[in-house]
Structures are given as C-alpha cells and as structure tokens.
C-alpha cells in the first residue's frame, strides 16, 4: 500500500514536477473553459492556426533571449491581425486565408529558428517543454489565465446569446462582432499560456480535447466548462505520470492523454445514450435520439 502511495506522490516531491503540475493546472483552467466556447463557435481551426502562427514570435524571443511568453504574445497579435486583414478577400473563405497566414508565418519562423545564430532547442518551441517551466513563466501564465477567466465570466451572457442565435442577439443587446473579436483575443491569450507547456504544434490538444470530451457528457454550458477544466487537469496529471514513469516526452504525453480521454469517453457516452433509449420506450427510433446539441443549451 505504502509503495503505491509512494509511487503516486513521489513525482511531486521534485521542483520540476511541481512546476509542471502548476502549468498543467493553468492549462486546464484556461483550455477547459475556453475550449467549450471554441467548440460552440466552431473555431478549432483558428485556434490551431493561431498556435502555429505565433512561431516567428517564439523564434525571435529564443534568438534574442527574451522571455518566450513575450515573443508568443507579439506573435499572436501579428497572426491575428494578418488573419483579420487578409481574411477579408471575399473570393477565398476564412479557412483558406487562415491556411495562407499560418504557412507563411510558420515558414518564416522555421527559417529564423534554423538559422545558425539561433540557440538549439527548436523542438522545445515546437512540442513544448512542460518540465522546463520557470517560476517567472508560471507567474506570467497565471496572470494571463486570470485575465482569460475574468473576461469569460464578464462576457458569458454575450457569448451565449451570440453563439445561440446570431441574428436575434442584437435585439437583446449583444454585439456579435464584439463577441467574435473578444473570443479570438482570448484564444490568443490562452495559446500564449499553453504554448510554454505544449509547444505550438500541440497546444490545440488542450483547447479542443477536454471540451469535446465534456460535451459528450453534459449539455449545459457552465457544467460543461467546469467538467472540461477538471478533465483537462486529470488528463494533464496522467500525462505527467506517464512522462515521469515511462520517460516519454512531457508535452506529447499530456496532449496524447487528452486525445485518448476523448476516444475512451466516446463509446461510453454512446452506451449511455443507448441505455437511456431503453429506459424511455416509445421515444422513437434510435436515429431520433439526438446527441447533446447546442440547441439543448439553457440560455
């Protein structure tokens, strides 16, 4: 028994792992809560690409020795402006302009990062270094996380009204444009928080995985956000254990656990729906029992 307990607590006696745990906690808070909105607004591609597109910012920060978070912040702003400006060409859709922006910026970042002057550690930027987080990083990430969560609380009604019905939102005093822009800014901030731990190729795991899992289980927005946060933290901790005992790459283990969590939950939720169907005979054919959809949301 005591061996089991020791195996459970041993990792957290080290400073590296304590900081990694704190980082995973921040990841969970920001990614879980915001992820639900990303799914609601179908912004997964934008979220993924913002993370890719801040790569030049990271590379410049690595080259000049500035804090990575600062580089990531500037990189996100540049990327968001580029998407907003270039995305206005009417012939090509939003997805295409997003693709243009990320390939260009990512290519630029790679050229910078692989230049002879840049220090080694490109892979840390790409895949994150959850075990190499410093106290200063944590402090900055924590401050940004607070900003994201407070903004989500303040904007909750707006986001819900706009996401639920864009056309009538205006009549009840919500502003669709403001909601869209605010959400993009918050995704940018969350990416900056998460990029330290997961790197810019894996960030999207925490922004989409836990929220998608939670969406399989609950229907209402606030419980979904709470559950997603909890699941993100759970998967993150599990990933850290995996990394500690199996010696696997930290960021990839955390990201992988978040995806596996979804894949495991999917059949379970399908099973639960089957059971519910049996409990309520006469509810119609199987096809008519819907998965939790957004129209079931309580506004």
């Amino acid at each position, binding site marked *: 028994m005591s061996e089991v307990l020791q195996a459970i607590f041993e990792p957290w006696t080290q400073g590296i792992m304590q900081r990694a745990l704190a980082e995973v906690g921040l990841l969970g808070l920001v990614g879980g809560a915001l992820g639900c909105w990303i799914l609601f607004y179908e912004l997964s591609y934008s979220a993924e690409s913002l993370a890719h597109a801040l790569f030049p910012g990271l590379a410049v920060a690595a080259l000049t020795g500035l804090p990575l978070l600062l580089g990531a912040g500037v990189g996100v702003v540049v990327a968001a402006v580029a998407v907003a400006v270039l995305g206005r060409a009417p012939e090509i859709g939003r997805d295409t302009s997003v693709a*243009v922006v990320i390939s260009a910026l990512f290519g630029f970042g790679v050229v910078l990062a*692989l230049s002879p002057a840049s220090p080694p550690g490109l892979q840390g930027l790409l895949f994150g270094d959850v075990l190499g987080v410093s106290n200063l990083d944590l402090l900055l990430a924590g401050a940004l996380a607070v900003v994201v969560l407070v903004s989500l609380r303040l904007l909750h009604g707006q986001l819900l009204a706009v996401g639920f019905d864009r056309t009538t939102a205006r009549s009840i005093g919500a502003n669709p444009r403001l909601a869209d822009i605010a959400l993009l800014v918050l995704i940018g901030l969350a990416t900056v928080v998460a990029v330290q731990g997961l790197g810019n190729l894996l960030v999207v795991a925490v922004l989409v995985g836990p929220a998608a899992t939670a969406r399989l289980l609950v229907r209402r927005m606030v419980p979904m956000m709470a559950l997603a946060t909890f699941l993100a933290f759970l998967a993150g901790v599990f990933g850290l254990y995996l990394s500690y005992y199996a010696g696997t790459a930290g960021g990839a283990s955390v990201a992988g656990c978040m995806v596996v969590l979804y894949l495991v939950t999917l059949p379970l939720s399908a099973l639960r729906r089957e059971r519910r169907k049996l409990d309520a005979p006469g509810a119609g054919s199987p096809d008519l029992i819907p998965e939790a959809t*957004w129209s079931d949301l309580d506004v």
Partner: protein
Amino acid sequence: MYELVFGPFALPFAQRGLVEVLALSVGAGLLGTWIVLRGLAFYSHAVGMAAFPGLVLAGGLGFAAPIGAFLTAVIFAGGLERLSRGKKSGYDSLTALVLVGMVALGVILASDVFLSGSDIDTLLFGSLLAISSGDVVFAAVASAAAIAATFLFGRVWLAAGFDPESVRSLGVGSRFPDGVLLVLISLSITSALSAAGAVLVTALFVVPAATMRLFVRRMLSWQFGSVALVAVEGTLGLWLSVQTNAPPGATIAMLSGAVFVVAVVARRYTRTHAVYKKQSA
C-alpha cells in the same frame, strides 16, 4: 550574376529538387484550386500533419517513407470519417483532435522509441537532401492522377462545391467523386512531404491557388495559373533554400505568403483605381 542565379542549380541535389518541384506543381496547383473551392484547407493541413508519425515509423523501421505517410494519412481520414459519422457539426474540432493526437504519437515515437533526433526537423519542414528519385516519380504519378481525375470528375466537384443538393438530383451522386478527391489530395500531399515537410504542405497546395483566385474568375485559367504559380514559387523557394541553407518547405512557405500579401495589396489598389476611372469618366 550568372553564378548567383544559376549557381545553386548546378548542384545535383538541387537539380533533383527542381525536377521534384516541377513534377509536384501540376498536382499541387490543380488540386489546390479544388481545395480552395471546396474549403478543404484544414483537411489538407491535417493530412500533412497526420503523416508525421508514419514518417517517423518509416524512418525508424527502415521502410519507404511514402508508404508510412500514406498509411497514416488514410488512417487519419478513415478515423475522422468514423468519428464524425452521423454528426452535423463539430467536424473541425474532430479534425483538430485527431490531428493533434497523431502529432503527439509522432513526437513520442520520435523522441522516445526511435530516438530520431534532428531528423524531426527534416520530417516537419522538408529537406533538399531527403528528395530521392523515387519521390520524383511518385510526384509525377500523383500529378498525372490529378489531371486524369480532374477530367473525369471536375464537373461534379465543381457542381458539388456550389450546390450539393442539386448534384444529387441530377443523379450523379457526389459521394464517390468526393471520396476520390479526398484520396487524391492525401496521395498528392504524401508525394510532397519530402520536399515541403509535414507542417508546410499548405504552402504548395493552398497558398498559390488562393493567390491566383484573387485575379481570375474562370476555372480553367485558375487551374493553369495556379500550376504556373506553384512552379515559379517552388523554383524560387528552392533557390532561396540553397542560398540560406534553410529547409525548402520553409522558404517556399515564406515566399508564397509574401506573394499573397503583395497580391492582396495590388488588387485592392487596382480595384480602387478602376473605380476612380469609372467615376471620372
């Protein structure tokens, strides 16, 4: 001057790279127009990224890289289809989820199982030295398939892009042709991986076609224009890659992105100019 312009292409590996890019340009330009028209940019990006674990496996176990890449691309597409079956929304979040799962798998395989080390850069961003003559043949075959399929299915693809319902009512059924399109995109992207890398295939498959779309309205001129633009941007990108020693995927991406920005600005200028002319006339 001569040395500066043509010097890089005197190197044998750069010559092979040039042939590879030209062979790719037909498939990339042609399929690029369909990708832009049908809104498949995220899918294309995801197929490239999903090939990453396949490339790592191929490198580690010593079989041909395109086989590994194409296998994982098919697994990705099949998994996505299975997960999203019967769902009306959430397609993009599932794409993101499957994609990042594949990348995480690739990272764990590369850093903990096969200890691939610096090869990861090559797999992600491409490398001139990684292009084999087999890759060139593969790219040519994929391009030929893209031409043939465009002749066979182009009309259905075009119609389905505008109005999926009416295609069905015409009795053509767009399920099979759409499947062909997705498989072709996967195949063609697989053939581009050694040159462009897993992360940057969209630089060849999306950016040139999107740039061209700003200036043309007809499908045929769009297709020819995109193929030509891929060839030009690819060649210049290769040249830049030899000069700067950066991976070709990165230089091509940077270059084609810059061309796109210039194109957007130029078009805005010519548009306003034309409006002024009309007003003063």
